[in-house]
């Protein structure tokens, strides 16, 4: 399984050092000759998320309903998904995101999201279980999105931790229920903020609003499948699927209305207009948009020594676009920098950065999906 993909290099040798690369032009700083690929896990059906354990083992979720523990020592794969009575696998539904407790050394919890219910009554669930080193035990359901809806599309399902030891979970609009993304009385098309135990923080933006669900953090979203805290800018970024066109990067703001479906640069898959509006008072405009769509399905903020030229940049994996978009963000703007890993020609579901060494992990979305580690050449 430890297959290394060495790109055919004619002019360049493996001796390219970063110091040399750093002096190159901006385009060359993102040249594919600077990195190499290594398949670290294969034959994983539609991998969705990866976390790297402190001992460098991996946990990888498969949308098809498996959670693979891959040991770094012998690469042995074991399905460690605990029994989930109401896991719903169909279409876009299944097992979604994974995240380690921010203080994993002392509180070894793995958080995971999944579609729960059945074809006519389902939504997104958030649970956590304690990692023993070889299995997940003591599963606790922390949250179930309301209402139970019909169909197997648009679950959101990504989560991120904030520095104040709360978490934000993204939730989709369920596709057929898009207008309800403007409602605060259910969770469709919202993000929610919870404590690490699943309680509702008292400083959530709609706690005092009797007509709103108190866990809602922001609303007016279509299907947010990327979320990451930017430590330098102290901002939570999200990537959001648009319809046909109108994929977005946004800075998540407490209480913010991000406009869907009243505002979008995209149109329906049939070509019909979803909304006549591009701008309305009180609704937040996207920081950055892609039209035509690339289908952004994740988000990571780069940090590490492996690719220092990408420090604090946004990495956005694209399913339809078959690349990872590299974007530079500052206080006011988000700018595209480069399209990375296009030579893989693969739908990329998620991107994860190793917390210590800066290696990048790409999850390839396919029935025989794989996880590819990207390191400096």
């Amino acid at each position: 399984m430890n297959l290394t993909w060495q790109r055919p290099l004619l002019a360049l040798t493996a001796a390219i050092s970063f110091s040399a690369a750093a002096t190159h032009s901006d385009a060359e700083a993102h040249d594919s000759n600077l990195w190499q690929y290594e398949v670290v896990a294969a034959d994983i059906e539609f991998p969705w998320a990866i976390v790297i354990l402190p001992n460098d083992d991996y946990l990888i979720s498969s949308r098809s309903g498996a959670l693979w523990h891959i040991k770094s020592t012998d690469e042995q794969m074991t399905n460690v998904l605990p029994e989930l009575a109401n896991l719903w696998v169909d279409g876009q539904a299944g097992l979604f995101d994974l995240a380690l407790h921010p203080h994993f050394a002392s509180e070894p919890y793995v958080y995971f999201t999944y579609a729960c219910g059945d074809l006519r009554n389902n939504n997104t669930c958030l649970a956590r279980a304690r990692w023993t080193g070889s299995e997940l035990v003591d599963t606790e359901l922390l949250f179930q999105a309301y209402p139970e809806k019909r169909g197997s599309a648009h679950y959101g399902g990504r989560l991120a931790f904030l520095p104040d030891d709360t978490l934000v979970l993204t939730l989709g609009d369920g596709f057929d229920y898009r207008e309800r993304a403007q409602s605060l009385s259910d969770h469709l098309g919202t993000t929610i903020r919870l404590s690490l135990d699943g309680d509702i923080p008292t400083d959530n933006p709609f706690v005092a609003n009797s007509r709103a669900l108190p866990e809602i953090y922001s609303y007016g979203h279509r299907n947010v499948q990327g979320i990451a805290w930017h430590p330098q800018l102290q901002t939570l970024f999200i990537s959001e699927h648009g319809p046909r066109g109108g994929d977005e990067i946004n800075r998540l703001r407490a209480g913010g209305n991000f406009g869907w479906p009243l505002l979008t640069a995209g149109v329906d898959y049939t070509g019909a207009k979803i909304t006549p509006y591009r701008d309305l008072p009180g609704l937040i405009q996207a920081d950055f948009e892609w039209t035509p769509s690339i289908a952004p399905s994740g988000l990571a903020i780069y940090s590490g020594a492996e690719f220092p030229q990408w420090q604090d940049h946004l990495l956005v994996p694209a399913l339809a676009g078959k690349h990872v978009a590299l974007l530079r963000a500052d206080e006011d703007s988000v700018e595209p920098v480069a399209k990375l890993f296009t030579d893989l020609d693969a739908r990329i579901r998620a991107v994860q950065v190793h917390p210590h060494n800066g290696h990048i992990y790409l999850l390839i979305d396919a029935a025989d999906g794989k996880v590819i580690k990207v390191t400096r050449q």
Partner: protein
Amino acid sequence: MRTRRRTLSYLLAFIPAVLLAGVLGSVIQTQFNLLAIGSIGPAIDFTTRLETTIYDLRHFGPVYTAIIFLVYLIALPVAHLVVRVQKRQIYAWCAVATAIGLWVAFRFIDHFAPMPTLIAATRTTPGTLLMIFSSFLGGLFYAWLSRILRRYLPRTRKGT
């Protein structure tokens, strides 16, 4: 000669009926979408409504008309078969066959398309019924036009 004239009348009525149902359906789906947007946002003014309707006729209309074309291609011959047996009520059979045909097409598309509902206006029962009604009217128009055309098409001379 009579049969040939009748067949020609059916062929000539087919495309106008498809176009009528396609345009009606496109206009109906736009109004349903704008109704939904108006329920969560500002009221839609006339200019915006007109612009959106025209936009959808240009961009959604061709897709929808292609669906109608395929539906009518199957539904109308079925209606003619029934009429041949029953020997009456061509208006009713054409209208019903095209309406049921479109309903089946919606179910078929939504079953195989990756999204739960392809055409947003058909997410609700009233929206689905009104879209189907546009197909019903197209079927009626086809039956009416084919009869009119038959009356006015020139008779072919004996021996030619």
